[in-house]
């Protein structure tokens, strides 16, 4: 397993005045054997980033490296495999399950070898190998998604890009697919870029979390730190907006402030300065002397801040103040306050220590140590 690194990657759609940068100078690393959760709203560019990695959309700038080597040829890209959102459209309806999986097997091999390999892969994803001869139409959504996962694994990839793999599934099967992904990742030591709009799902599988907004990564760090002590107000807003059992809509959160824009801005015309400033609960619309937000792009010196937060007031008291109470209603004491300190100090230092292009420890770190670091987050 190797490390996947995005270095200043830009993806542009359209040309001339209508052109938009769907992905705009993204630096992100998926260290070997870890799961990086990528969250953001629709249109934030998270799926486009994954598609750029596997070569489905061309990049307009920057480099995508696998183990420090820039990927140029199509053959390099086969070492990355993608699992798509909709299991109903990601399997060819005219091809048997076995053929779909066999197609992704690298190299030439005999019929018997292919069949046994397909059987092995189907068993790996908890499906009966006898289903290899079935057409996808006979499978449920969850089973189709397992087949899609088996097909991705067939290519013996270094990194898997999972794009909203549970969003189209019913809740009762979503859990089983998440369990499988988590289990496979641990058993095979996979590196995964796990894309989802659902923070709870991302939290469950990820070691690191990156938050994307309007084509840019606005915050990245160890999962527990990002969720317990978000440095960027957008992360805070996402956390607050996630529906949770027992919460009431009446519990106002900072982002409910009525002077803020309710909708994300158009990517055709991103606001000047900080792209989030018109929706920001700690931004210039609320705290009037923070004019810097509308003037200077915080993306430029993000590297120097904890979690590489693209915010001039990253980790400011407004963010942390609201923090602990919302992360978990019942057991807030675990995380409160301490979380913030930890990140600002040790955690932040570690993230930055790895340097510009890399996040969350050196590439040589194995999965378990990365996982441990995440788990070491304060539980007093």
């Amino acid at each position: 397993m190797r490390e996947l690194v995005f270095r200043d990657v830009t993806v542009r759609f359209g040309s001339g005045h209508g052109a938009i940068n769907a992905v705009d100078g993204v630096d992100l690393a998926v260290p070997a054997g870890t799961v990086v959760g990528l969250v953001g709203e629709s249109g934030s560019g998270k799926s486009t980033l994954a598609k750029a990695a596997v070569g489905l959309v061309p990049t307009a700038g920057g480099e995508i490296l696998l183990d420090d080597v820039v990927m140029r040829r199509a053959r390099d890209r086969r070492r990355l495999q993608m699992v798509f959102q909709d299991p109903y459209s990601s399997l060819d309806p005219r091809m048997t399950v076995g053929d779909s999986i066999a197609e992704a097997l690298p190299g030439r091999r005999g019929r018997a070898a292919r069949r046994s390999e397909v059987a092995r892969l189907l068993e790996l994803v908890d499906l009966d190998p006898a289903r290899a001869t079935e057409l996808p139409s006979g499978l449920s959504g969850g089973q189709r998604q397992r087949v899609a996962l088996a097909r991705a694994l067939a290519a013996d990839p270094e990194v898997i890009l999972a794009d909203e793999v549970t969003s189209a599934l019913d809740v009762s099967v979503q859990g089983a697919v998440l369990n499988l992904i988590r289990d496979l990742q641990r058993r095979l030591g996979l590196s995964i870029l796990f894309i989802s709009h659902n923070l709870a799902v991302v939290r469950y599988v990820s070691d690191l979390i990156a938050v994307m907004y309007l084509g840019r990564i606005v915050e990245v760090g160890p999962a527990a730190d990002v969720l317990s002590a978000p440095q960027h107000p957008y992360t805070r807003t996402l956390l607050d907006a996630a529906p949770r059992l027992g919460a009431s809509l009446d519990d106002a959160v900072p982002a409910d402030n009525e002077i803020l824009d309710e909708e994300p801005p158009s990517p055709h015309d991103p606001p000047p300065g900080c792209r989030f400033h018109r929706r920001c609960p700690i931004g210039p619309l609320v705290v009037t002397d923070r004019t810097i937000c509308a003037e200077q792009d915080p993306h430029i010196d993000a590297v120097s801040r904890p979690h590489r937060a693209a915010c001039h007031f990253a980790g400011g008291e407004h963010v942390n103040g609201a923090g602990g109470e919302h992360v978990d209603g019942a057991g807030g004491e675990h995380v409160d306050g301490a979380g913030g300190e930890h990140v600002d100090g040790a955690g932040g230092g570690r993230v930055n220590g790895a340097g510009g292009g890399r996040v969350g420890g050196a590439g040589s770190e194995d999965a378990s140590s990365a996982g441990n670091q995440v788990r070491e987050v304060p539980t007093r």
Partner: protein
Amino acid sequence: MRLEHWRSAMRSPVGAVAATLLAAFAVLAVIAPMIWGDAAEETEPAALSQGSSSEHLLGTDALGRDIALRVLVATRFSLGLALMATSISVVIGIILGVLPAVLGRRTGRLVVAVVNLAVAFPALLLALVFAVVFGIGSHGAVLAIGAAGAPSFARLVQTNVASVAGRDYVSAARVAGVSRLRLVVRHLLPNIGEPLVVNATVMAGTALLAFAGLSFLGLGVQPPSYDWGRLLGEGLDRIYLNPAAALAPGVAVVLAGLAFTLMGEAIAQVVGIRTGMFRTLDAAPVPVARAESAGDDDAVLVAEDLRVAFPAAGDGWTRPVDGVSLTVRRGETVGIVGESGSGKSLTALALARLTPENAAVSATRLEFAGEPLLGRSDAEVGRLLGTSLAMVFQDPMTSFNPSMRVGAQLAEVTRTHEGHSREEALERAVDRLRKVHIPVPERRARQYPHEFSGGMRQRAMIGMGLMSTPSLIIADEPTTALDVTVQRQVLRLLRDVQRDSGAAVVLISHDIAVVSQMCQRIVVMYAGRIVEELPVDQLASAAHPYTRTLFGSVPDMTTDRERPLATIPGRPPDPGARPGGCAFAPRCTFADERCAEAPELAVVGARQRAACWHPRQEPVPVTAAAETGDRI
């Protein structure tokens, strides 16, 4: 296309006629030259240019050859040429059609442009030009007609390939490193086969006609060979002396052309949209006038034993909604939770009388605001629901008319139901848009739906519901297509609207967390039935095993990352093949032989009912993660 599709195509009148004709022509094409081949060449100097006689049914030609025999024998050559030309069109068309998908972006565009240019040329003109280029004669004609038909076929292939090429499985194959050629052969062509087959069949008919035309003009088949067109040309010279000599090949051309075209039609019917089955539910329970149950004065909506059934293959019925009883009181917010296929959306549509036309809706009681809905004319029901029921659907893009300004669409509601003038109605529309927090509503009212963002459209939809004074708002997955931050705003808006207007709200969602934030009472549906009904503050004491596992299987921000999520084995049953008894029994850990009998909703706690023989007493173990202290 599966075998049974072909069979059903052959059973339709059009298909049967086409198949019979084509089979007859095929037989003729094979045997006619063998039997009559020599006889048709035989010249009879004694009988030159004769009319119909007992010896020569359709007369003879200038060399004394029997015309009837010649028409029959010409079948093979005529059909053969047409099929060859069609094959050429299809092959060139497919190659040109898939090239853009195989070539790079720039060369691909060039191919598309060339094909578009060629399509703009009339095919017959193209055929004439090619006929001259390739030389007079049958070879030239085949190439000419083949080449002339290629551009339109290429265009068809391009369009279909473009639509399939965007699908995820093609992307997945590309990511897996499948070669471009294999991509075309294994993934693109098989999935666009149906429209191609239909068009190729119709095209064979056209080619036949084109050949007849070319031969008739003398550009096609040259003597001594002959096809129907040639015979037609020869016969036409003497049409006043012996009309049969011209009519017979003409009829042959028309019949064969018709056979191909009808065949195309029949195939298209099978692979295309099949018309829905319409049947009336025989065993529909007759609405019974029952004594009003007490304490319902406060009810906005009362449904008892609501069923929705669709005709299934054979004589059966599928019942996606199978006996739902629901009462919604004034100002109450009720959430309906369930997975896809549980019948939750169809229940809402049935309540609003919006089910598809082939659905059979029945209920023992269905009342809205105290007025019975069953057994009334559609117009009366429309008036009643139009003014006091508001619907908000999942996809706000498809629930607005894309060619109408948003303000005008909102205004239409009051103009239809309350007879307001244009200005009054529009004024109210702007006011309602303002009420649902749409910035600069005067300007927004003049915009089209596509100029609104998803969240904005959903607000406008809610605004539309507020145009009159609704006593019930049914919101079916209103925020599923929206981002979480926008979802929160839309839900808060819905809550504000509910408080201001005093309307009751039925919120349908697959997301129990969304429902729990908004509603007082939660109704859980599984396989077309209500399995549990409980107040939102008693979620932790859910009694039905399905409700309980549903909680456990959804990760939230406190789920223990070190433990696997609780899962429900198996999958929800198809509405067409539900197990008898409790539909959840096959997936339930507590199921025993008693569950073979369907349980009724029974009271299991304060304001809580569950349809289960083994309701659980102990609290739901969702808080297990918190107890371990291992929070993250």
